């Protein structure tokens, strides 16, 4: 049991950066960004290729994050090209298409970066080993949980700080009422691109850490990221509430952990790992449709 909990916590915390990224796009920017299915393996690919190439894992991780940010910017620019001149912020077509295009293109980019579909990272120094050596600890189990948990808290507070700055307010308003914030002199094309960059940087951070923790980068590891991210966001909001931005950032991290815990339990109960994506999709559908169904039932 303890192993289940520690490994679920570990996974939940490693994936919480991705879930925070999905929260940033879906909830804050009102931009359903499908880039994430490509930017997660991008983070893994860049980090993997650099570590294999003999670079320091810290630099490799930072480069992975940077690459993810670039992917987010590409989606932002594509959205500018695809949306019609008079901006209608509730028109999700161009937003979805921009993300799909970047995600698809990233498949090729990721293969090119890795040079093959899978890079094993066994027997090389990852960021976890570096940290373990520095602290004279073996980076397994709870030690990983503590290390990634500390990083999660740092990232949480950075986001919290950012969203309370002047720029952060314009970022929040871009997703909340674009017409208003434009009329207030903000270039929403700019805020949106910055938001997408930050979000995909976070997603790539998860990709980078996953690769280093499980010992390989794989071109297919991003499949279903968006749905898993949504599941984390929704669970966090439902279970832990969303009374303020500062609070909801914690909720989302909590949601990520609960989601990984559920997966661990499902696997323990004998559900095949390959069935998990379908289960997650069903879970998201149910959670998203509850408000609609409830309002219909009440009306009847």
């Amino acid at each position, binding site marked *: 049991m303890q192993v289940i909990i520690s490994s679920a916590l570990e996974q939940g915390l490693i994936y919480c950066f991705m879930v925070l990224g999905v929260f940033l796009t879906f909830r804050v920017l009102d931009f359903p960004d499908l880039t994430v299915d490509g930017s997660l393996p991008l983070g893994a690919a860049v980090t993997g290729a650099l570590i294999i190439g003999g670079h320091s894992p810290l630099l490799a991780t930072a480069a992975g994050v940077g690459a993810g940010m670039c992917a987010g910017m590409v989606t932002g620019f594509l959205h500018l090209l695809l949306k019609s001149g008079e901006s209608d912020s509730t028109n999700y077509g161009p937003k979805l298409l921009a993300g799909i295009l970047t995600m698809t293109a990233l498949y090729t980019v990721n293969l090119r970066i890795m040079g093959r579909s899978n890079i094993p990272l066994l027997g090389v120094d990852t960021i976890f080993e570096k940290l373990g050596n520095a602290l004279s600890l073996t980076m397994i189990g709870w030690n990983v949980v503590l290390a990634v948990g500390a990083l999660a808290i740092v990232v949480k507070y950075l986001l919290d700080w950012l969203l309370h700055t002047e720029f952060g*307010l314009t970022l929040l308003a871009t997703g909340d*009422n674009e017409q208003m914030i434009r009329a207030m002199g903000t270039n929403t094309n700019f805020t949106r691109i910055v938001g997408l960059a930050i979000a995909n940087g976070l997603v790539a951070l998860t990709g980078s850490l996953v690769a280093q923790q499980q010992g390989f980068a794989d071109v297919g590891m991003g499949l279903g990221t968006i749905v898993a991210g949504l599941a984390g966001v929704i669970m966090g909001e439902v279970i832990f509430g969303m009374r303020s931005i500062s609070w909801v950032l914690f909720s989302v991290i909590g949601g990520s952990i609960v989601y990984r815990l559920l997966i661990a339990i499902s696997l323990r109960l004998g559900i095949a790992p390959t069935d998990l994506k379908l289960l997650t999709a069903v879970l998201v559908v149910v959670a998203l449709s509850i408000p609609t169904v409830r309002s219909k039932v009440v009306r009847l």
Partner: protein
Amino acid sequence: MSAPATLDVGGLRKVFFPGTANEVVALNGIDLEVPAGQFVSIIGSNGSGKSTLLNAVAGTFPLSGGTITLGGRDVTKQAEHVRSRVIGRVFQDPRAGTAPSMTIEENLAISLLRSKRSGLRRGVTNRRREVMRAQLSRLHMGLEDRLKAGVNKLSGGQRQAMSLLMATIAEPSLLLLDEHTAALDPKVAATIMELTAAIVIERGLTTLMVTHNMELALRYGDRLIMMHGGRVVLDLDEQQKSTLEVGDLIEKFHEVAGEAFAVDRMLLE
């Protein structure tokens, strides 16, 4: 902060869907000079181009022809968000002027930053809260004690009062009001209109107010403009309009437009 400025509009043309079966000439050569500090009411039937004129000045879409100068600066090609730093706007829909899931103080902080570049300093500071409380207390809605309340908890009238405050708090060079009381119930609409007039007169703001309501147009403002078919068909100064009543205005319209006048919503209220 910027001072109220002169607005000069010359030969303004806007054609929507040019070259298609749906082609609409929304603005057909508008020439208009509004001296700094003037409060202009604009009336006209549906499709007369009055809202299009406001949107053209705000820079919502590229023009088909003509120039717009604000305070002596040609802003014709300036992007909407750049122009917005000195142009305050209030829309018809009370939901349009505020960010619903953000708090009152966050919304007002955004409006205080309008003319500045938003940086990485804290958005809501105690110094800004002081300014917000002082401004909000003028609305007499008790909002100054609810700075941390979500805007989605406010009524339509409260939200429109907030929108008005947010549009004017950073002393815009120009204020554009697009039927900003039309979606409110009559009592609330009257309150918001009184508030508007008080703010506009006190700050001496250059203001364009589009309205469906002839009585409002006659009662408020220093000048009245009537639009029809994308043109200005009537332009009355304060003295001329002070002698008119709603009935005279309709008659005038018949004279100028020379066709049956769609009274529709104009006579109501």
